[in-house]
């Protein structure tokens, strides 16, 4: 094996850092965008054809770009935001740009699952648009949102593997540089097992939380 325990441990910490920080910021970006996508749809509370059209195209555009290309393409922007284009922090910026629009779509699809009747009831009660969002839409979609956020987090673990390109480190990077490029089968096996455990753990946690908030 070409790597020692410390290297693996620090890689795990880097992955957790990258995924956690980028997840939180992606939600900050994706949740409002997803809500905006939903409420500006035809027939919804803030119907706005132009805004919906723009959001739709922008989100699709970002989602079309492969992560590895996005990572490199936005280096000037990354440098502007975190002051460097190398390292863990530099990997986090493209991860947010990648996951934000993805989460926006997931949020939109969660909100689309909410029963129209509930929104009609909100309208009949004279709820304002913001009351409809906070009191009706989000609570009713919460369980589904948790499931979708879990999917997004696992997607971010996958994206973090490519962070090595900009020196981001992490478990996936270890797997590529040692396991794949230097044919270190043991390191490959260990890192893959670590990733499997992470994904399994996150999925179970997500399912559990979804059950708790959705009482299912």
């Amino acid at each position, binding site marked *: 094996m070409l790597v020692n325990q410390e290297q693996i441990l620090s890689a795990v910490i880097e992955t957790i850092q990258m995924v956690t920080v980028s997840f939180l910021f992606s939600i900050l970006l994706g949740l409002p965008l997803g809500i905006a996508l939903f409420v500006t749809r035809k027939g919804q509370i803030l119907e706005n054809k132009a805004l919906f059209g723009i959001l739709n195209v922008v989100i699709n555009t970002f989602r079309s770009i492969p992560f590895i290309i996005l990572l490199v393409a936005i280096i000037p922007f990354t440098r502007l935001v975190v002051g460097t284009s190398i390292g863990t922090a530099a990997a986090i910026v493209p991860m947010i740009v990648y996951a934000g629009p993805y989460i926006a779509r997931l949020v939109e699809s969660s909100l689309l699952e909410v029963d129209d009747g509930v929104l*009609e009831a909100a309208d*009949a*009660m*004279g*709820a304002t648009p913001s009351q409809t969002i906070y009191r009706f839409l989000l*609570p009713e979609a919460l369980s589904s949102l948790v499931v979708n956020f879990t999917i997004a987090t696992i997607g971010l673990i996958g994206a973090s593997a490519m962070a090595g390109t900009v020196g981001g480190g992490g478990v996936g990077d270890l797997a590529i540089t040692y396991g794949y490029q230097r044919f270190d089968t043991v390191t490959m096996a260990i890192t893959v097992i670590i990733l499997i455990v992470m994904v399994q753990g996150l999925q179970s946690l997500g399912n559990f939380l979804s059950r708790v908030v*959705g009482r299912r």
Partner: protein
Amino acid sequence: MIEFRNLEKSFEGKHGAVHALKDINLTVEKGAIYGVVGFSGAGKSTLIRCVNYLEQPTAGSVIVDGSDLTQISTREIRSVKKKIGMVFQHFNLLNSKTVYANVAMPLILDNTPKAKIRERVTELLDFVGLGDKAKMYPDQLSGGQKQRVGIARALATQPSILLCDEATSALDPQTTDSILNLLRKINEEYNITILLITHEMAVVREICNRVAVMEDGNVIEEGTVFEIFSNPQTATGKNFVNTVMHTEIPKYVTEMIENGSDSTDVYRINFVDHSAGRPFLSQISKKFDLDVNVLFGNITELQGVPFGNLIVRFQGDGSEVTKALSYLEENKIVYNEVNTNAG
């Protein structure tokens, strides 16, 4: 009070505009329980949704307690909506919230103080008979219980009007009865005007005082429940009345008239109110030289008034029959001769 004046509503459909409401003029008096019946697609759902502006009229006006919704701002409409409760066919409760939170919701939207919400919600849950279910979630309740939660929620802001959109259509007959009793109690105790739409004529017979029959975007018949049930004017009206009154002539009677040699002298006699309680038929057979043969009949109660419908054959001499008929006329009893092509 709700007034519809020359109300029109059309939707843009794939195959051109769909005219859902055509020049509707109706008045629902304060304190009434007003029923609107019609088949699916008749426009009744659109009509009730215009009252709390879930649908915006294309033309005409909707006047709720004096304010014309088509003339006021969105903000003002929102405050009018708070004075109108609505009960839905599929309840439309928040499944993520407890029964308590569901009923409290309209008050929360109004920023009502917590203590006041507690007081009001407790009172309402007791009123609808769910005092012990406050902490449960909608998916733990039966359909009837869910509708009681829906009703409690609709009453939270002490509305003057309650709209019921097929409120009992998803419920079994027994539960329907208990929900209708609850609606009647609401009408009597709080003097809330109730406008309900339904395709079940039994619901109208049970609790309404007035009824409108809708077809193809028009109100084709309107009157007191007694008027419509005892003497429907339109084919659709008759159709609806027949679903609960069984006033249509049974097949065996029409076959008998068609095949029988003595096909005449079969009459439908309507007994209303006072006449339903008197022994006219036996008087006829005593006074005149006639045998009275009852072929079909029923006597039901409509709004507390007895209402009878009998199909009889007078057997005897023609002149005696004529005398019997004028006797019926003297006593203001409605009758008509039955022949096979008349319904």
